[in-house]
């Protein structure tokens, strides 16, 4: 019997016809994709291949043999095994077994420390939340969420290495002694995070060792940005000047390839999203269009920021500067500008010829001219409230131009959105300086998180390193740089060390250890501090044996004394803050020192900019990777498995090209088919891929190409990226650090080798783009050649594809003409509910779960319907207007809910376990409209006129996170044969794992495809070892002894064969409720009465409004997720997101017009609802009429 196919209702005629798609397959209507839509899991994910069947049959026989042999033994010990409770000997203060403790700390990054509150269970840090008390807090991101896993990474370096061989702390201490005795020249290369303690130690080390010099390096920060900022805001090259952004004050934003909401953080995404909500993010008022910010984006490949943009121009990397110059020219011509500003801009623009730009708009230069001049006009009109951001990866010319434009727009200074600041990073040399400094008499310390041997272009760095007397690397991984150095010292994770950092606006923030170093790692501060103090050791006494030779201390000193890093941070704090314990304890509790921002710096002369050499033809654009950053997180399983937010590729990188370029390269059809052609050799092995192969199941193969630039050549799989600039290839850096399958251009790594450059997670992941990268982040392509080979890719864009009408909805602040009825923004918002075809006519749902009294129950309360709780009813609202699609929620959920990773092969088969699926759609109007708002037709014919190709090639990007919707009429519940998934009184769709027998009927019946099935024991057996999952009880367990320490003890670890899905973080809800239940005792004590005389009301038991947050909600950098008690009428944020305070005749409150339920016409009554996305296009722009219409219909 075939499955019943839901007949989706028609799209209302008054809606604009939209083409929306997730993948090439969907756009081209491939039959394979259609099959995906109709299945609950991708075909093959629920089937065993021949090979699997064979191994499971053999495994079964083995198991039977083994168990019958053992049964004799087993009978003897029939009683349950003894288990033990081992309490502390001396209970530490504050620790209550079973209750978490929270500490404020900071994750240091080059973009400013990320303020955190760390959840620890009996000393184990398990989850990182943002510190909302901190001035720069309130937002998290995927990298931060996943950084806790790095602490427990089984591949973490834990052994001192000398020339690649195992060494010891003692031997290294001796070597360090040698340096302290006879220092010679010392070069110390650190990261670009701003640690005041390190800065202080730097000064002290420089006076102790006059020949010591400090340098800083981060792969993705861009030398151009550093040079330009230092030259304009400072006086020299190492002044450590930066610019901070305050989006609260920004009405208009022009981003020149700056992914400030994604991988190139500038300013606070929280503030940006507040302005995106047009005055107030608490949903108490509708969005005021005039208070909304507007974002213009010029970029090469789609970024998350580009996805939020109201207007977007796709441009090759070399042309971004040219487009920027055109906008600058228009700004320059404005009357309102001072002569000085005009002169400064002219100093730049005069060196450039006028750009035709017609090819951006299908050969119409007028449109281009209109685009740049209207953009410039809009920025000028809002001078003082508008700003220009240039991408960090771009050259100095673009940076200087952006500064000049900002000066002209009066964007700097108090009250303006930008502020030049003086950071504490002054006096650190650049990488070039480093390479020039190092000689044969130099000792090199590499302390930063970067991996320069891998990520610097060419081999100059390697040469410099090799020429040094000796080199010492401190790092969490034995990466390429560790292997190239004389010494490698295992580093302490930031959750294991004392340190400090400046957050984005310079607030002094503290790092405190949550746990002693698991693998005896050494922190940077500890190393520098001891290098400094050892200068004063009396070596004569050591030689004579009167004093003991010093041994490098880490974690804690002898007899439990504090780490030297603690004393150093205390000294710094005494300088910056106050002396004494009171202020210190206060700062430690808060995680920061209030009122300690950076000093401001005013911009000076921008200087002239000469035009860089022109680049013709195909270019390659190097991207920062949203998952692994510059490659430092390559061994982080959560991040590797989180699909790239744009390409939806997990575990790999690929060359992204626009459909047009793909066609020119001859790979478009190959990408679209995705069917394997067996005569092609396949790079890398994907075992157990089921056959026959369809769609993007385990058999998805991308065609390989070889790209040659002047710097080198690389082989890489090619994928189509919509909205990508033509004549250009984008590749994320950081991948391809080590491989065991002999892939081209990658260091050979052996699996389970403790000193390999990558561990089991990072091995065979992606291709090394640094091989073709010269200086900078774009290069001219000399040759690109399609190869015969194909490469298996784990693309998840089609997995669990939801099917229906008006899934994601969008409106525009501009008036939209619908069939002669002009519709204002307010009317469009009112109409959001009707975008889903029959939503407005759908009959009220009748609950199937009315309980008609039960045999055991004589209580009337219990006969009420199942959603009966009068105290708490949980609900969630996800605001698509501020959702970036960034994966922070997805990774936070993984950390909170013990979600396993499944490995590339399992992901390729559609077996990923993420409870949140980050859907992303591309969409564009299909047809042109005439002046009445009707579909335009060719003169006198019925042929509808399609939108121009440049509109179609630059579609809108719509992200939509989907997890279990907790439907009140949940289709999954009615089909479960064992009642493993049932409703709770509080409106949760509960999942009882121990009851589930794995029929998967529920997943089959879920219209949102939100359920995940444990096909294997992913939690117990390591999915990354080849064929390991199929070995059942004989499989190798998780490698390493620590990963289980990260687990949340309040969430069951699921086993093979059970279904799982979002629970609304029920463990958090229950603990909040239980805490509230103490109120009876508290009231009794307060009243001084007998407990029977004190009543406890429903209001007493209701938890404080919005006091419980789900993991995804807490992590969201734009606060797009509201969650809470929908019975907190006019109080909880989620109530406001779903309702307005306008009371209707029936006594109910009118719904928030922007709020809607996905697939409401199916009648599921989901508790998770969505708010429509709002675009704020500039009416005068040539592309304005195509924006803000992206309502997604997939059926």
């Amino acid at each position, binding site marked *: 019997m075939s499955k019943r196919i839901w007949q989706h209702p028609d799209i209302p005629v008054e809606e604009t016809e939209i083409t929306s798609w997730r993948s090439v397959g969907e756009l081209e209507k491939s039959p394979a994709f259609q099959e995906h839509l109709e299945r609950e899991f991708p075909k093959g994910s629920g089937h065993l291949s021949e090979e699997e069947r064979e191994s499971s049959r053999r495994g079964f026989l083995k198991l039977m043999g083994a168990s019958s042999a053992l049964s004799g033994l087993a009978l003897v010990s029939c009683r349950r095994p003894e288990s033990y409770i081992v309490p502390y000997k001396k209970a530490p203060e504050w620790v209550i077994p079973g209750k978490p403790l929270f500490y404020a700390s900071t994750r240091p990054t080059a973009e400013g420390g990320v303020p955190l509150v760390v959840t620890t269970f009996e000393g184990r840090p398990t989850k990182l939340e943002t510190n909302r008390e901190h001035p720069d807090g309130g937002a998290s991101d995927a990298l931060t969420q996943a950084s806790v896993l790095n602490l427990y990474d089984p591949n973490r370096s834990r052994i001192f290495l000398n020339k690649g061989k195992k060494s010891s702390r003692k031997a290294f201490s001796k070597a360090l002694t040698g340096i302290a005795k006879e220092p010679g020249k010392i070069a110390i290369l650190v990261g670009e995070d701003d640690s005041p303690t390190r800065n202080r130690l730097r000064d002290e080390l420089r006076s102790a060792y006059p020949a010591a010099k400090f340098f800083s390096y981060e792969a993705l920060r861009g030398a151009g940005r550093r040079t330009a900022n230092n030259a304009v805001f400072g006086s020299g090259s190492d002044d450590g000047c930066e610019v901070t952004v305050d989006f609260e004050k920004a009405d208009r934003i022009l981003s020149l390839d700056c992914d400030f909401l994604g991988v190139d953080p500038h300013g606070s995404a929280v503030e940006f999203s507040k302005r995106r909500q047009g005055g107030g993010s608490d949903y108490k008022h509708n969005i005021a269009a005039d208070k909304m910010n507007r974002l213009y984006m010029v970029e090469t490949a789609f970024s998350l920021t580009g996805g939020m943009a109201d207007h977007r121009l796709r441009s090759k990397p070399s042309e971004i500067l040219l487009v920027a110059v055109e906008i600058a020219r228009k700004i320059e011509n404005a009357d309102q500008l001072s002569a000085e500003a005009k002169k400064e801009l002219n100093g730049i623009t005069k060196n450039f010829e006028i750009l035709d730009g017609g090819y951006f708009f299908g050969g119409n230069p007028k449109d281009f001219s209109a685009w740049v001049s209207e953009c410039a006009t809009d920025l000028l009109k809002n001078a003082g409230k508008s700003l220009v951001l240039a991408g960090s990866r771009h050259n100095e010319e673009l940076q200087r131009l952006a500064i000049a434009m900002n000066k002209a727009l009066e964007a700097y200074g108090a009250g303006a959105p930008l502020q030049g600041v003086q950071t504490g990073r002054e006096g650190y040399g650049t990488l070039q300086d480093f390479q020039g400094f190092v000689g044969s008499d130099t000792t090199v310390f590499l302390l930063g998180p970067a991996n320069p041997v891998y990520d610097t272009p060419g081999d100059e760095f390697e040469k410099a390193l090799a020429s040094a007397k000796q080199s010492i690397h401190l790092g969490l991984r034995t990466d390429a740089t560790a292997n190239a150095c004389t010494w490698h010292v295992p580093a302490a994770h930031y959750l294991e060390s004392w340190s400090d950092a400046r957050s984005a606006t310079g607030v002094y923030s503290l790092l405190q250890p949550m746990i002693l170093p698991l693998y005896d790692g050494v922190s940077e501060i500890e190393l520098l501090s001891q290098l400094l103090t050892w200068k004063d050791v009396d070596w004569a006494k050591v030689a004579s044996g009167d004093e003991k030779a010093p041994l490098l201390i880490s974690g804690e000193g002898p007899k439990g004394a504090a780490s030297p890093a603690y004393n150093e941070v205390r000294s710094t704090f005494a300088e910056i803050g106050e002396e004494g314990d009171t202020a210190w304890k206060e700062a430690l509790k808060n995680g920061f020192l209030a009122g300690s921002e950076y000093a401001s710096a005013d911009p000076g002369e921008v200087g002239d900019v000469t035009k860089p050499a022109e680049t013709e033809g195909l270019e390659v654009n190097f991207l920062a990777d949203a998952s692994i950053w510059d490659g430092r997180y390559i061994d982080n399983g959560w991040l590797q498995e989180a699909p790239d937010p744009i390409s939806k590729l997990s575990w790999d990188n690929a060359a992204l090209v626009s459909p047009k370029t793909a066609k020119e390269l001859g790979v478009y059809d190959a990408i679209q088919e995705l069917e394997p052609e067996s005569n092609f050799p396949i790079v890398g092995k994907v075992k157990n891929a089921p056959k026959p192969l369809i769609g993007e199941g385990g058999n998805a193969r991308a065609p390989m190409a070889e790209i040659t630039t002047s710097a080198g050549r690389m082989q890489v799989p090619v994928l189509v990226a919509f909205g990508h600039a033509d004549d250009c290839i984008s590749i994320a850096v950081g991948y391809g650090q080590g491989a065991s399958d002999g892939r081209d251009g990658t260091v050979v790594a052996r699996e389970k080798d403790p000193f390999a450059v990558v561990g089991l997670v990072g091995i065979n992941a992606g291709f090394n783009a640094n091989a073709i990268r010269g200086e900078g982040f774009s290069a001219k392509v000399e040759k690109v050649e399609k190869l015969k080979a194909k490469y298996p890719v784990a693309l998840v864009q089609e997995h669990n594809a939801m099917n229906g009408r008006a899934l994601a909805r969008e409106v525009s602040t501009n008036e939209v003409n619908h069939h002669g009825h002009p519709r204002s923004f307010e009317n469009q918002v009112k109409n959001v509910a009707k975008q889903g075809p029959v939503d407005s006519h759908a009959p009220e749902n009748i609950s199937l779960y009315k309980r008609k009294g039960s045999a055991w129950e004589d209580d009337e309360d219990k006969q009420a319907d199942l959603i009966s709780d009068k105290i708490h009813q949980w609900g969630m609202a996800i605001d698509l207007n501020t959702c970036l699609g960034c994966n922070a929620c997805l990774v936070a959920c993984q950390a909170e809910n013990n979600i396993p990773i499944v490995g590339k092969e399992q992901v390729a088969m559609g077996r990923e376990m993420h409870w949140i699926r980050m859907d992303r759609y591309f969409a564009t109007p299909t047809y042109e409209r005439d002046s009445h708002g009707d579909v335009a037709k060719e003169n006198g014919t019925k042929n509808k006129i399609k939108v121009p190709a440049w509109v179609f090639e630059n579609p809108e990007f719509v992200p939509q996170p989907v997890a279990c919707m907790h439907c009140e009429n949940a289709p999954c519940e009615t089909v479960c044969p064992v009642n493993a998934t049932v409703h709770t009184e509080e409106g949760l769709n509960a999942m009882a794992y121990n009851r589930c027998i794995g029929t998967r009927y529920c997943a089959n019946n879920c219209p949102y495809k939100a359920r995940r099935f444990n096909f294997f024991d992913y939690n117990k057996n390591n999915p990354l070892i080849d064929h390991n999952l199929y070995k059942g009880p004989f499989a190798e367990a998780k490698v390493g002894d620590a990963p289980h320490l990260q687990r949340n003890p309040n969430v*069951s670890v699921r086993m093979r064969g059970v279904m799982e899905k979002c629970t609304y973080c029920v463990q958090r809800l229950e603990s909040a409720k239980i805490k509230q239940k103490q109120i009876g005792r508290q009231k009794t004590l307060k009243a001084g009465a007998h407990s029977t005389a004190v*009543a406890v009301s429903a209001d007493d038991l209701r938890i404080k409004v919005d006091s419980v947050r789900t993991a995804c909600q807490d992590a969201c950098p734009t606060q797009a997720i509201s969650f809470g008690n929908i019975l907190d009428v006019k109080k909880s944020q989620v109530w406001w997101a779903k309702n307005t305070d306008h009371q209707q005749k029936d006594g109910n409150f009118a719904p928030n017009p922007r709020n809607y339920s996905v697939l409401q016409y199916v009648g599921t009554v989901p508790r998770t609802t969505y708010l429509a996305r709002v675009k704020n296009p500039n009416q005068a722009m040539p592309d304005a009429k195509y924006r803000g219409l992206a309502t997604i219909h997939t059926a």
Partner: protein
Amino acid sequence: MANFFPRWTNVLPLKIAICLGFAGAGVVVGFAYYATPKAQRVGYQPAQPIAYDHALHVGQLGLDCRYCHSFVEHSGQANIPSANTCWNCHQHVRKDSAKLAPLRRAYDKDFAGYDGEPLKWVRVHKNPDYVFFNHSAHVNRGVSCVSCHGKVNEMEVVFQAKSHSMGFCLDCHRSPENHLRPLEEVFNLDYDAEKYLTENEILDASGNRISTQKDLGKFLKAHWNIQSKDSCSTCHR
């Protein structure tokens, strides 16, 4: 041809079938009884590293439960006391008793056999990993220790007194009135409702004096808004 099988063999298959039927039924009945927590768990009484006597400490000396299980009102887990809790008294009381040697091995640095290894108490009450029982949610709402652990104050060696099966939990969650008592009496393991109600005057909502546990339970349930849930996520997460 001779008859190989004598006549009585004709009924043999029937006899075998009946016997097998009884044997099968016996196995089923036996399994249904002996494989349940009621038979498997109740009475489990392992030997502990220190023969701690609850009857002595609680029953005779009158220690409150919360002296040792100090976080029971705050945490999900009713903690087993850390060694320093024992040592608070026993550094003065019967310090040299041979029974206390394991404690001193763990805690007393002056003790000859000191090795610093923490005490390993044998777990008596063990719920499966997927059950999240929370002590504080119960003791703060008028459910006494006795309801689940029995009269520990009379146990010389602790044993499991109740089955702790899911049915056991649900019995109470469906009818909490059988177990609710005033908060003051939660840790009083000798509490007797009838006796208590004759000694203390507790009036119900309509002003009548309560005299039975059932009425008291019903009154407290309404008075304290007790809504013991029986949906899955109450205990399984």
